[in-house]
Every structure is written in structure tokens, then in C-alpha cells.
């Protein structure tokens, strides 16, 4: 008997728990030659905004041991071009497409949620709250519980699709943020977004990234991500989507044991464009080999 890999994540029915992470998978089409999208659970688009964004100057990425820093600057085509040029591809794939989005103000977030809510091909919304609030001195929405609550409340009122809130790890207590988002009406939480880091070029005495700091991702962040997923899964009732340095099926299954209902594969897709599909297949093989009939039986099954 093939193991049951299906999960229901906040109303999104997934054939298996493996999604691709925002910003690492374009708008889906870029990977069509490398991944059979119908063998992964869902794919998440690059973060979208109302207006197109050009992004930061280069260098935008740098590798560090076991990880990479990026400061792309949320370059994206904007919601209008997304609807016109990217959404038609979604119709050709029987896999949920999740639209990741952000704004500079609460109103922009709400407007984005409203616009995305009108697109039938979008199965769910993932809101990136790791952006500075330009109207409140640039405080990052996702690092202040009150700000996060305001933005999630506004998005909740603007959409009836499943609303996933992507949490920043750059906070003192991630559970406080998780609870604020739960109370504001989120349907699921995904974590972790990248950790803020930096790299220095000693000989030039300059930061490597033009933006100075960037988001740290890759296998080096997995222990932090696992810890935060475990804390949040215990601290809230919402389903949790685990993200952070997942390179293989073992990593993915560890997140599920820690309490994640689903996982997202990010940086691994850069190295191996077929990573998400391979991880899903290897998870199934591990379950068969270990006599686990249903993936749902592993969610939060960590023994402590």
C-alpha cells in the first residue's frame, strides 16, 4: 500500500506536504522543465506588490558556509503583470498556486489581498509581513505584534481564501508574533522567513552585498527553524508550514515531527531545481520503508 501523503493545510488540499518557498521558484513556470509540478503539494509565487519593483543594486547574493545571503529587494512584476502574464500558466497545472504578497502600508496589504482574492487560479494567499511600514518610521510589520495584528486583520477582511502568514525569525519571541497573527484571523502560519545577516569582504573592507545586510537561508539555518516551528506548533492551534534549510526528505520529516503540517523547500531549488519533487518522493519512500501509512500520523509526533 502506498502511504497516504495528503494533508489539509488550512483548507488547502495538498497531494503531499511539500511546497516550494516564495522567492525561490519564480512564478512556477520557470521550473516547469525541471519539476513535475503535479508531484508536489503546492507552489508559492515570488512576493508580489501593487506596483512592479525593480529590486536592489548588485551584488545581491553571496554564499557563506552552508548557506547564502540574499538582498534581492523584492523584485517582482507587480499585480497587473502577474494577472496578465503569470496566472494563465496556473490553469495548466493541477496543483494549488499560492500567491505570496507584501505592501508598504496596511492599505497596500489590504488592497493586494483584495486583488488576489479575485483571481480564481490562486488557491491561497501567503502574506509576507517582514517589510518595513513606511508610514510608521519603517518598523518591520512582522517584528511588532500590534503592527502584525493590524496588517493581518486588514488582509483577513479583504479575502475569503486561506490566508497564510509568513513569520519573520528576527524577533525576540516568535510565539508572541504567532499568537498575534492567530488572533487577527490567519488560517495558517509559515516559518521561518530568512534571518537577517551580513558578509564582509576583509580585503576591500566593505560589505559584500550592495544592500549591506541580507536574508540568510540554506541548510545552516535549519536548527533555528526547527526550534521555532516546534515552539509555534505548540503555542498556537493553527496549522504550521515549516521552512528553513530543507535539503532532503529527512529534513522535511523532521519539520513534520516538530509540528509542521506541510513544508516549503526554498534554497534547495536553486541548487537542484527538481528538489521539491525529489523530497516528496523520498518522503514517501521513507514512509513505506518505515511502515508509516499516513503522513498525518507524523505531524507533531516528536517524543520529548
Amino acid at each position, binding site marked *: 500500500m502506498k502511504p497516504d501523503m495528503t494533508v489539509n493545510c488550512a483548507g488547502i488540499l495538498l497531494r503531499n506536504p511539500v511546497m516550494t518557498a516564495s*522567492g*525561490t*521558484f*519564480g512564478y512556477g513556470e*520557470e*521550473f516547469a*522543465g*525541471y519539476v513535475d509540478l503535479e508531484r508536489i503539494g503546492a507552489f508559492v509565487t*515570488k512576493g508580489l506588490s501593487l506596483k512592479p*519593483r*525593480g*529590486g536592489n*543594486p*548588485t*551584488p*545581491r*547574493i*553571496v*554564499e557563506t*558556509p*552552508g*548557506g*547564502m545571503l*540574499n538582498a*534581492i529587494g523584492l*523584485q517582482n512584476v507587480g499585480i497587473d503583470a502577474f494577472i496578465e502574464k503569470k496566472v494563465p500558466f496556473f490553469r495548466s497545472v493541477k496543483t494549488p498556486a499560492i500567491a505570496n504578497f507584501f505592501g508598504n502600508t496596511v492599505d497596500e496589504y489590504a488592497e493586494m489581498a483584495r486583488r488576489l482574492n479575485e483571481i480564481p487560479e490562486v488557491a491561497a494567499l501567503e502574506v509576507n509581513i517582514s517589510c518595513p511600514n513606511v508610514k510608521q518610521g519603517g518598523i518591520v510589520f512582522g517584528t511588532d505584534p500590534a503592527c502584525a495584528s493590524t496588517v493581518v486583520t486588514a488582509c483577513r477582511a479583504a479575502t475569503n481564501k486561506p490566508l497564510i502568514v509568513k513569520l519573520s525569525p528576527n524577533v525576540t519571541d516568535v510565539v508572541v508574533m504567532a499568537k498575534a497573527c492567530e488572533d487577527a484571523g490567519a488560517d495558517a502560519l509559515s516559518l521561518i522567513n530568512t534571518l537577517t545577516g551580513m558578509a564582509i569582504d576583509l580585503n576591500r573592507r566593505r560589505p559584500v552585498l550592495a544592500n549591506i545586510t541580507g536574508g540568510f537561508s*540554506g*541548510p*545552516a539555518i535549519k536548527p533555528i527553524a526547527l526550534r521555532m516551528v516546534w515552539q509555534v506548533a505548540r503555542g498556537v492551534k493553527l496549522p504550521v508550514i515549516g521552512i528553513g534549510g530543507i*535539503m532532503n526528505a529527512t529534513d522535511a520529516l523532521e519539520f513534520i515531527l516538530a509540528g509542521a503540517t506541510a513544508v516549503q523547500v526554498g*534554497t534547495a*531549488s*536553486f*541548487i*537542484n*531545481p*527538481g528538489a521539491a519533487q525529489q523530497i516528496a518522493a523520498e518522503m514517501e519512500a521513507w514512509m513505506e520503508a518505515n511502515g508509516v501509512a499516513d503522513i498525518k500520523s507524523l505531524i507533531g509526533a516528536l517524543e520529548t
Partner: protein
Amino acid sequence: MQFTSMILSNAEVSPGYWRMRMTAPQEFASASPGQFVMVRVNGAIDPLLRRPFGIFDVGVYTPSQSGALSQPCFEMLYRVVGKGTLMLSALHETDLLDILGPLGMGFDLGYVDEEKLIVGGGVGLAPLYLLAKELVKQSQVRLFAGGRTRDDVLCITEFERLGVECYTATEDGSLGECGLVTEALLRRLDTLKGKAKIYACGPHGMLNAVAKIAAERTIPCQVSLEGYMACGVGACLGCVATGHRHSPETPDFRCVCTEGPVFESGELKWRD
């Protein structure tokens, strides 16, 4: 396309510069000059990302065992600059590598009646050999190869064997003219009567100078760029170059891996 490649040879051709020959699947035979590959140096997580390399040459490999079928092979010319390339240089014949490619948009071969002027700096010659190999079939080709020292001027004999007329320049005068290779390019352009097309790959300063020369003389010019990239397939957006319409208000970024690595020089923004 993603494939496993077997190393056929890996040798240092000049201090710090290596040339690797490796097997490829049948589809690779159609790789065009200017395209590149993303190489995973090992299966571990350090180095984490693939490394991009220009395709130096594409050929046919016939195993020595009798009855073994021929298959395409390709070559990379690379410089040891860090951890990844150092590990690559330590690999041997029969070692296996995980490769993505051929990737990106290659060179436009232009018109038969144009004299083709190829300008390469250091390891920037890497994607220009396969280009020269195609161009000599239809046009006259001249190569202008520059470097800091003679050690940085690579594979000139191979270009000469194709029938390419080669000019060399080094900053320390240890090979060819002392100075920048763009001087020799300018002299050729001054005496040229017919049409020309320029191709360039090398350090940014050299590309900048070549692009300026091409713009001043309205000569079509294509440049091949390098970029820090994670994926090579247009997803990470790490490797962008600034387009000619770029300004802080109206950003114009071009993806080096999918829109390039070869661009019309007039499409990019250069320093004045």
C-alpha cells in the same frame, strides 16, 4: 537539462587557470556559443551553490573500448578564484559532476560580410573559443586577447589553429604589446573599410571600454557578462545587470542567466 557528467581530463593550462573536458548527453551537441553551465562541485552543502562556467568548446568523445558509442563532450576554461574552483581543480578523470545546462542566450553570429572582432580578457576567453569556431566558417575573425601578465593570456594557439588572427596585450608587457588590448582593437577599427561586429567577454572595465568604442563608432557589439547567481534559471534574481533605461525611479534590470549572459552592449548601462 540536468545531467551527470564524467570528467575526461582536468589540467592546469597556465598558473591558476584550468581546462576541464567532460561528457555530456546527446542534446548537449546543440549548445550554442555563449551559453553556460551550472556545475555542482560536490554533493555536500559547502560549497552550497552551483558555479556558472562558460562553455569553451563542444566536441565528440569516443571511448577507447571497442564498440563503445560516441557521445558529446564539452570543455570549460576556469580560473581558481575561491573554494569552489579550488575543489574543481582537485578533481580527476572519471570523477562525476552534476551539471545544469546549456543555459542562457548565446551570441548572435551576425552577417557573413562583417569582419568579426573578438575581445577577451583573462578567463573571459572561455566562451569565445566556441564562438570563434562558428564564426570562422563564414567570416574573417580577429582576436584581441588581453591580461595582466602572460599567464593571463590563454589558449591563443587554439584560436590560431582555427585561422583566427590574434593580437595580444599585457599590462606588464610580458606578452604582446604592453598596455590594454583595446588599443589594438582601436587600431584595427581605424584601418577597417568594411562592416564589423564586436564580441567581448572579460573584466567589467574592459567591457565598459569596448562598449564605449562600439557606441562611438556605431558598430554592433555583444558582450557576455558574469554575475553572482544562485540558480541559473531565472528564479533567484541575484545576477541582474542594469539595462540602459535604468534609473532609481524606473528600474531596468536584466537577468544575466536567462536574458543573457550575452547582451547587445547598447542594451546595458555603462559608466561614462
